[in-house]
């Protein structure tokens, strides 16, 4: 954690915009560059930035370990769930055309949830790796 006033204030100003940009990259990925992977890493980078400036303990209070670990599995399960939803509705695995009466709307729905799954897993893994690396030095001292 840093006591530098300039860094703390600038971080507080920047982090909301980085998080907003992550959401923009996620939900605008159908039209502009971006998608689940990019949104996931930008979100994780914003949280790492927060942890570097305000300390690992504060970051762990915002996104606790159990939540980050659940995100790692939840994203893959969501992706698989979209695949099995296609099977249930009479299509093939990961067939989005059957997800909605209108095939094009079905494609939109499938891609939306698949990208959400990718973003959740990627940001969870990035954050977990950072937590484990950053936590090691402090654990040794205790």
């Amino acid at each position, binding site marked *: 954690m840093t006591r530098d006033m300039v860094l703390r204030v600038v971080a507080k100003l920047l982090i909301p915009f980085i998080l907003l940009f992550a959401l923009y*990259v996620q939900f605008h*990925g*159908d*039209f*502009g*560059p*971006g*998608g*689940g*992977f*990019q949104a996931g*890493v*930008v979100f*994780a*980078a914003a949280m*790492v*930035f927060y942890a*570097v400036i305000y300390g690992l303990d504060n970051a762990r209070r915002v996104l606790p370990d159990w939540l980050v*670990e659940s995100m*790692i*599995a939840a*994203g*893959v399960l969501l*992706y*698989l769930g979209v*695949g099995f939803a296609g099977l249930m509705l009479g299509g093939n695995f*990961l067939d*989005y055309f059957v997800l909605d009466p209108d*095939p*094009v*709307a079905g*494609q*939109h729905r*499938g*891609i939306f949830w*698949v*990208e959400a*799954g*990718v973003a959740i*897993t*990627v940001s*969870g*893994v*990035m954050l*977990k*790796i*950072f937590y*484990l*690396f*950053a936590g*090691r*030095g402090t*654990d*040794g001292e205790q």
Partner: protein
Amino acid sequence: MEALIVNVLLAMMMVAVVVLARTRNLFAVIVLAGLYSFLMATVMVALDAVDVAMTEAAVGAGVSTVLLLGALHLCRSEEAKPVHKPWLPLAVTAATGLVLVYGTWDLPAFSDPEAPIHKHVAPRYLEEGPRETGIPNMVTAVLASYRGYDTLGETTVVFTAGAGIIALLRRRRRAAADKEAP
């Protein structure tokens, strides 16, 4: 103009790599590696691959640099002198590099529209994609819909990497706790 920008950036990356290899201070090495990633991200922007640039800037220059700094916190900040002479590894690396350059002579020219990879399924994606998926961004349509299986595999790889890191670093911590207990 674009070729000039890319070549200047690649030359700067080459300088960064040479300095990186010669530097012994690990903090400077980490900063140079971050610089290298930012230059790579800029090359990607110049080549119109903005999504790759975003990933490179966030992962390569951002998160990796922080992780390496965290690792530096656990070890000494000066690189130890190498035990062996570098000539054999240098010769192997140079030979491999020459073989790879020889291999590129057979590849189609850079961004050649007549290359076989652009003649296989790509025209069908470009022609039918917007109508079938209703999504203007071809990258998203191919990535999440046409190549949904591949992306599922990639997501599983990321999941496996996370699970592996958890398994490796967690066990170390429990072993330390066991040592303290008795």
